[in-house]
């Protein structure tokens, strides 16, 4: 016989476990940011973000990681622009030009979900072999193409989700006024503008943080990325390389670089959050 007392005790214990789980999961976030902050802050300097690596940088001498910061910004920026140029029309097509129950639409949504799950190392591997086959060396361009493929599903799925939930009335009103689908699309695009920025930020965040995709396709360079057909440094890769060095000064710079990347990501996340709540208000 389970008495009411022991049943209530079980409830209490279970609740404690659940709270513990919640705290450890949320805590892990603060642990990660805290440790990077703690280790990186002492090594952070103006020199780090204003200079390119000088001679002897990798044995602990002068220089910074401006090359990697700029490389990452270029790479993520270009890929995001491309991903939006391809992704926004696709999201519009799926929501405005087609019958929502059509097999094509459902299959496409499913495939974009699946594409979203494919790891960047697979994209990187295939892009690398194509580049070898075509005789192109690792370059900013190679990275941009790989990362664009990686980020298209993000843009499409985010916008699709938004467009799917726009009030049907809005679509119907514009159509019943005699607008063509394209004109309706333009109205809807205006309506979901904050959402588009969210998609842009999400894609940018994914693009700037990726390593496995750029490792094989973009290469690395100590110079500022000036030409699209030359190798370029990226921030995550700079962190990765510096961390594997045995020299403490170089490792320290890896921590500082990690901190810089953390700041960039946090900035993006906060902007996304603000925009998302704006879109919500917009809807009401």
């Amino acid at each position, binding site marked *: *016989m*389970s*008495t*009411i007392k022991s*049943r*209530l005790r079980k409830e209490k214990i279970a609740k404690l476990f659940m709270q513990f789980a919640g705290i450890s999961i949320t805590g892990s976030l603060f642990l990660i940011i805290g440790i990077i902050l703690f280790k990186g802050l002492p090594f952070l300097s103006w020199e780090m973000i204003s200079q390119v690596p000088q001679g002897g940088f990798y044995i602990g001498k002068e220089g910074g990681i401006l090359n990697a910061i700029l490389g990452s910004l270029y790479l993520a920026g270009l890929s995001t622009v491309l991903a939006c140029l391809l992704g926004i029309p696709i999201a519009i097509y799926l929501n405005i030009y087609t019958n929502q129950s059509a097999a094509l639409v459902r299959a496409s949504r499913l495939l974009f979900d699946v594409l979203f799950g494919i790891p960047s190392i697979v994209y990187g591997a295939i892009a690398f072999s194509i580049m070898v086959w075509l005789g192109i060396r690792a370059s900013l361009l190679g990275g941009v193409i790989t990362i664009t493929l990686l980020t298209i599903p993000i843009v499409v799925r985010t916008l699709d989700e938004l467009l799917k939930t726009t009030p049907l009335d809005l679509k119907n009103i514009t159509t019943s006024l005699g607008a063509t689908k394209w004109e309706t699309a333009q109205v809807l695009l205006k309506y979901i503008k904050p959402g588009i920025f969210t998609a842009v930020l999400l894609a940018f965040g994914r693009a700037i943080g990726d390593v496995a995709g750029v490792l094989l396709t973009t290469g690395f360079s100590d110079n500022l990325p000036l030409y699209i057909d030359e190798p370029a440094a990226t921030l995550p890769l700079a962190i990765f390389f510096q961390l594997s060095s045995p020299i403490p000064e170089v490792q320290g710079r890896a921590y500082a670089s990690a901190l810089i990347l953390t700041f960039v990501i946090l900035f993006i996340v906060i902007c996304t959050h603000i925009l998302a709540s704006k879109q919500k208000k917009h809807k009401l």
Partner: protein
Amino acid sequence: MHTHSSFQTEETQTVSLPVLPHIQIKDLNVYIEDKHILKNINLDIPNNSITSIIGPSGCGKTTLLKTLNRLMDDSKNVKVSGSVLVNGEDIYAKDAEVTHIRKKMGLLSQRPFPLPMSIFDNIAYGPRIHGERNKKVLQHIVENQLKNVGLWEEVKDRLDSSATSLSIGQQQRLCLARGLAVQPEIILGDESTSALDPISTQTIENLLIDLKNDYTIVLVTHILRQARRVSDYIIFVYNGEIIEFGKTEDILLNPQHELTQQYVRGFIS
């Protein structure tokens, strides 16, 4: 404690009750997100009879029903003040144990919600929770309760199949049997026939009429004809207040309050 109590509204209709009423509600107020949903409810619900709560939608009748077994506690931002006495015990007292209170009351919801398990396990769920492990006893309970609701002949060969394989009318009877299996004293029905076809509705109504000899039954309904068919007493609620309470024929044929008259005649709904 009084052995005789009465309910009085401004309209001076009085219902006299011979024994201690099963459920007494005193100065009950319910707020949801600062909205005053139920206002100063005072009410004695008669034993071994069917009492229907009627009123326009959104008037608070379902909230009133749910405060009776403290299901409102689970909704967020709800504040309840006042007391509800069941057998003289205040279920909103600080030391009241909520599972114990709920066991005393079977709930029959708007649509049937069979638990995600077999027909047998649905009915055995309650007794098992309360510590019954003996297989023979459980089988006995299941058979008895299914017979009680007239479902035994229909399902006795497929007790192990999923409860969702039953028709919606059968499911509602299963839910009733599931509630009866924990030996409650009170049955609460929240528009329990609104999802059913006319024949299933009739079956449930007849079951409830049979059951009132052993249970105190409180129903929420928005169908006046149903209230007339099944209930002994009617409570008319409007805008969170009890407007009128009385015997079914009195309320339906000779309502005292203007609002009740308008509602009964169909001017407000």
